[in-house]
């Protein structure tokens, strides 16, 4: 567990005080809205459809029980009792009053948290695998590197006004659980000749021009991480377009200039910059590696766990879907899904947050992770504690056995909250989840990633869904386009648009036809939807979505 040092707490307190003064100057008329807006955005404060929104950073999704309790306090005292996990491992509060936000930032500063660089054209929260330090397939724990990048990028003077926002993800596992291919920079930890380093990807991103990243460096030794990342961003900072917001992300810079040109410039910049790094970064990395030491794992029998699995089918089902293999025998990583029936994907109440904090202390070595799919993980739980953990989660409505299934849908807030949205996402997600739960088909369908965005900016990662749904405004009516074949994990792929969009009330019937067609054509239950799609192509699925056209 990473501990916050006093110097960092002092820094966030000072930033909170600075923002309090800025709010006061806005309220007394010394600052215009045009002057204030960039200042509030630097502190994660947006103005949304119904209210202000505060986005709080959860660095690489790692959060301590005390910090989680502070989020619960914020939800209860200054919001409407809940918060929303985002796809970048942060949390958003949907109803804060501007006049209260300075107090909220002070409360966050008490536990070393803040909202700095959760908005604006800066380097945003560095994200990683929620099972970092726990996963069985890890080359190395990505968190010390993520922390190094976080410390370096916070208030990095050169990179406060980039052409556009900049997102970095880092993955330690053989399987990529951090979606590195869809980030401005993706880093995959790997080993070469006994040395730890990174495969470096650049130019990935979703939004209106979805593109997968490309490998710009096959192997970067770990000690060169900061100078190389700095070289990439410095190159982009100069070459990236500032004339057109929609062409300003690094993915467009790479697309327009070509990977080889970018690579040559980055390598040249890297050689120049590396001379200015005199080892402080490597010293810091050593300190961070020490601060992310593994907890003292227990060696205990797991007979009780096995017995409970035999005795309790609901528990067995939950352990089948919501556990992830741990690197230590007798342990598991637990995904607590926030996708219960009738629940808004990713919304957590204050009492649920407090319960997670308590359970992490009791059963989880004080460690909690916000997952990019809007769930929360307890990365280290001894299997003998799983029955008790499950019982406590179940009481709070948090034991839904659906991780990776049809109802485990990623959905952005959509037009229920977001000022940029063109249609709602949440009701569509709820309807799809309810429909397949009621039919009892979830288990039969198996692993399926449905992703819903309420506008082309793609915060719901619809392009990466096995089934993606994009909400649009078509002549004043909500309309939903369906994309098929996207994948965030195994073989990264951007989904292909299936055809004309559907009105809201026809989305569930369309997905129903699609999944029934899948059940018909799959070779056996081990062939997932995405596998069947890859084998057969779009035709049978398109025919199911558009039966009238297929008959014509």
């Amino acid at each position, binding site marked *: 567990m990473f501990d916050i040092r006093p110097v960092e707490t002092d820094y966030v307190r000072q930033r909170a005080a600075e923002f309090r003064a800025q709010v006061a100057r806005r309220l007394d008329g010394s600052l215009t809205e045009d002057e204030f807006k960039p200042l509030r955005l630097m502190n994660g404060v947006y103005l949304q459809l119904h209210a202000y929104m505060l986005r709080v950073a959860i660095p690489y999704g790692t959060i301590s029980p005390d910090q989680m309790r502070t989020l619960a306090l914020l939800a209860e005292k200054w919001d409407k009792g809940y918060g929303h996990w985002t796809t970048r491992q942060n949390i958003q509060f949907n109803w804060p009053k*501007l006049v209260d936000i300075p107090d909220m930032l002070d409360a966050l500063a008490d536990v070393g948290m803040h909202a700095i660089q959760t908005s604006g054209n800066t380097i945003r929260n560095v994200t990683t695998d929620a099972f970092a330090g726990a996963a069985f397939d890890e080359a190395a724990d990505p968190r010390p590197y993520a922390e190094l990048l976080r410390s370096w990028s916070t208030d990095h003077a050169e990179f406060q006004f980039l052409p556009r926002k900049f997102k970095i993800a880092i993955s330690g596992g053989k399987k990529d659980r951090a979606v590195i291919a869809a980030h401005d920079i993706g880093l995959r930890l790997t080993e070469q000749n006994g040395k730890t380093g990174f495969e470096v990807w650049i130019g990935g991103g979703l939004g209106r021009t979805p593109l997968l990243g490309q490998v710009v460096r096959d192997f970067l030794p770990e000690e060169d991480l900061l100078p190389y990342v700095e070289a990439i961003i410095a190159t982009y900072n100069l070459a990236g377009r500032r004339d057109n917001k929609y062409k300003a992300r690094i993915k467009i810079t790479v697309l327009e200039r070509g990977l080889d040109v970018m690579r040559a410039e980055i390598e040249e910049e890297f050689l120049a910059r590396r001379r200015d790094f005199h080892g402080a970064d490597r010293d810091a990395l050593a300190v961070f590696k020490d601060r992310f030491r593994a907890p003292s794992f227990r060696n205990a029998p797991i007979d009780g766990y096995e017995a409970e699995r035999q005795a309790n089918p609901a528990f067995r089902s939950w352990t089948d879907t919501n556990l992830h293999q741990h690197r230590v025998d007798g342990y598991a990583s637990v995904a607590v899904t926030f996708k219960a029936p009738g629940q808004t994907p990713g919304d957590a109440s204050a009492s649920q947050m407090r319960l997670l904090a308590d359970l992490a202390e009791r059963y989880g070595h004080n460690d909690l992770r916000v997952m990019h799919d809007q769930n929360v993980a307890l990365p280290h739980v001894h299997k003998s504690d799983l029955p008790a953990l499950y019982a406590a989660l179940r009481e709070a409505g948090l034991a839904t056995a659906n991780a990776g299934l049809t109802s485990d849908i990623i959905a952005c807030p959509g037009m229920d909250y977001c000022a940029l949205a063109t249609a709602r996402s949440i009701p569509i997600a709820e309807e799809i989840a309810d429909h397949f739960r009621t039919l009892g088909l979830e288990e039969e369908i198996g692993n399926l990633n449905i992703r819903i965005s309420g506008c082309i900016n793609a915060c719901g990662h619809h392009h990466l869904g096995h089934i993606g749904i994009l909400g649009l405004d078509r002549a004043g009516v909500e309309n939903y386009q369906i994309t098929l074949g996207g994948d965030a994990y195994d073989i990264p792929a951007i989904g292909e648009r299936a055809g004309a969009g559907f009105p809201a009330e026809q989305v569930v019937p369309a997905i129903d036809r699609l999944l029934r067609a899948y059940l018909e054509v799959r070779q056996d239950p081990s062939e997932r939807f995405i596998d069947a799609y890859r084998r057969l192509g779009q035709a049978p699925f398109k025919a199911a979505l558009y039966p009238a056209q297929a008959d014509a």
Partner: protein
Amino acid sequence: MSKAFTPTADRPGVITGNDLREGHNLWMCDGGWTPDPRRATLFEDEAIAELALLEAIGQPGVIVGPYLVEAKRGPDGPEPVHFREAFRQRGPSNYFHGIQADRRTAEAQKTESAHV
């Protein structure tokens, strides 16, 4: 949403934005501001509406991002035309929060005081 909307007699409009201090939605009403969209002033004349919008822009200590948007005449006052404005006037669909909840609270208080 069209921020460049200009009202006419056939396509009237209202002026709306967000409360600076608290963030909730407000509508221009007789030169002041109301959280009740049904009480909004319905503008049917381009020149009058644009002058009113200038007046709104001139109140940065009250309102953030004021804009003109199409509305239609309804039995209880102006009604939204586009679904985005309908959501702004109601609140989110996943929780009973926002204006729909505030309205119920206000009406309950009204009933309560009527019984006193």
